[in-house]
């Protein structure tokens, strides 16, 4: 059984399709990153999985249960940090953990939990006096009180400084080492890449790419390419003497050759050497997740607003 199964999930707010038919499954012990720009539908999706929102249609099973109808049961088994986590202003992290332990009717080892989220020094400071990172850590601590196997972290590092982000990452890595299943939403690509086993990129309520970051780059990126620093005649020489596809950028004085096979690199370099012309630095490059992400979310994929605009433009032209 998968901890999370989502099939053809849909949710609209009025005429806005926040989630437009998405499907995925998450394996036990996996860290699954849900990526996307603001308004892509990440939070709606995660809140439906947490049982905080009702879906319009589709199937959602969390630990085998319907999160809306069996919300009360599901909540006992999962841990959640909602987006912009806040808590009672005048309550300390220590008191908050004890409170949650009583609500969940579990014996919580308060000190261990505080150490686990690196918050033991601030245990007696009231929530309103904590820094942004410490507040998020309090949220993490609370989500661990009921020892859940499945955790939902909705933008756990948004608005935090780099140090605080790294501290949160450290905590998430520790949880991952304990084989917890984690769903993480973020709009930081490095965060998804650092922490996730698999990611899904969402845009306009749809999943536009899903898999490991390597898989996504391979499927949606332009692949590996060779870049040689050199002048136009060299580019022409390589083009004339090989079957390689050669592009030249005059401003950068750079020759770019897509590598369809590994041997292409040897062919290109041998030819360059044979030309007797000068050539400088060489490097191979591959699209980063950033490149793929930008190219994916900039496609007007089913975005109604843009389509309508284009149509009306055409009308004006005719």
């Amino acid at each position: 059984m998968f901890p999370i199964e989502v099939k053809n999930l849909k949710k609209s707010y009025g005429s806005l399709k926040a989630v437009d038919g998405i499907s995925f499954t998450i394996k036990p012990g996996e860290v699954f990153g849900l990526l996307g720009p603001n308004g892509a539908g990440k939070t709606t999706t995660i809140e439906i999985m947490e049982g905080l929102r009702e879906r319009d249609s589709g199937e959602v099973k969390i630990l085998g249960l319907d999160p809306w109808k069996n919300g009360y049961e599901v909540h006992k088994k999962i841990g959640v940090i909602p987006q912009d986590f806040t808590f009672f202003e005048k309550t300390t992290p220590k008191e908050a953990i004890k409170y949650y332990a009583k609500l969940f009717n579990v014996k919580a080892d308060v000190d261990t939990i505080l150490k686990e989220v690196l918050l033991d020094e601030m245990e007696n400071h009231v929530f309103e006096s904590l820094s942004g990172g410490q507040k998020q850590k309090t949220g993490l601590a609370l989500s661990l009180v009921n020892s859940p196997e499945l955790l939902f972290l909705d933008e756990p590092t948004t608005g935090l400084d780099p140090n605080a982000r790294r501290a949160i990452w450290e905590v998430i890595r520790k949880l991952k080492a304990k084989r917890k299943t984690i769903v993480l939403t973020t709009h930081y690509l490095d965060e998804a890449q650092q922490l996730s086993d698999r990611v899904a990129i969402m845009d306009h309520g749809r999943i536009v790419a899903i898999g490991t970051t390597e898989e996504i780059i391979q499927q949606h990126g332009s692949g590996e390419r060779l870049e040689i620093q050199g002048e136009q005649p060299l580019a022409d020489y390589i083009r004339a003497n090989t079957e390689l596809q050669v592009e030249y950028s005059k401003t950068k004085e750079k020759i770019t050759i897509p590598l369809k096979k590994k041997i292409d690199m040897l062919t290109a370099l041998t030819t360059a050497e044979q030309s007797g012309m000068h050539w400088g630095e060489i490097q191979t490059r591959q699209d980063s997740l950033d490149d793929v992400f930008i190219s994916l979310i900039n496609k007007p994929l089913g975005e109604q607003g843009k389509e309508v605009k284009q149509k009306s433009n055409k009308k004006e032209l005719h």
Partner: protein
Amino acid sequence: MVSFKRIYADFKVFSVGYLRNKFGLFFGLIFPVVLILIFGAIFSGDAGVVNVYAQNQDEGAFGQNIGNNFLTALNESTTIRVVIVNTSENFTDFLSSKSASDGIVIPTSFTKDYLAGQQVNVTVYGSPASSTSGIVSGTVNGYINYFNLQRFNGTMVIGMTSATVNTEQTTYIDFLVPGLIGFSILTNPMFSLVNIAADYKKNKLFKQLSLTPLTKMEWLISKVLFYIALSAAGFILMVAVGVIAFGAHIALSLWLIPFLVLGPILFASLGMLVGSVAKNPETAGVIGNVITFPMMFLTGTFFPLSMMPEYLQTIARVLPLYYVTEGLNNVMVYNNIPNALIDIVVLGIITLVIFVLAVKLFKWRED
């Protein structure tokens, strides 16, 4: 299924947080006591005695000045203090300059005409809008009759003894203590819960709590219990200050308990209801004030209801706080338990309706 363990856990966290908030603590417990001290001090002086300006133009005759005797007698009454105005002043201008409406003028020929047995009039200034004018003209009239009788050596046959229907004579402070207890039973839970409901909704704290086994019913019960405890503490403080500082006459009995319990339940639920239906904290605050302020002033909080005109008393009867204040007065001041019982029944019904509505309309999660 309601879990008392969870209610207790929530009650504890909320109470500790509340006690750390000095501002809340001030408004919860200290502010009503300050109000008692202020209002008590204002009205603890010569309550009901009217200051009135008087000008004696009487020139006297045969070495006597009956005008003087008349004003002296008035000044010794229990209802009027006479403030003498110099004859050089224009009396009506003087009254205007002092923004006063009540005044007495003794005419120049007063002694002469009085001794000669000729008709002479004392002029009494007054205003129909002023509640003191009736007291002044009534008192002056009484002393005119007395002086008329004396002139012809008559005797007073009918006298008057003052009495009140209560076991002890009531003073303003006796009304003020139950009134202000009602005030704090209304304002503490009402303002807090309007605020909490709107704030928790905005900051997604209800969402956060909905992810725990705590139910919204348990959460609301915990808040209600807290405000019952706070009202009880406020009650003890206010009664103590009323009795010790101003010698208020207050009857304490077990019949007070239903009001101290039902009141906080009612107003905590009402606050919750307002906070839940309002779109944002600002709107919630406004709606809360619109409901709270008329209740505060129209239901005998600061003044006994009987001082108000009939139609305002009718309006007061549809406001829930009326039954709290009226009930507390019935028990603490009039010792009228049968009437208090009626208040308890009405209050119980209103409370039940509002509580059920609050639980129904307040949502943990969104659709």
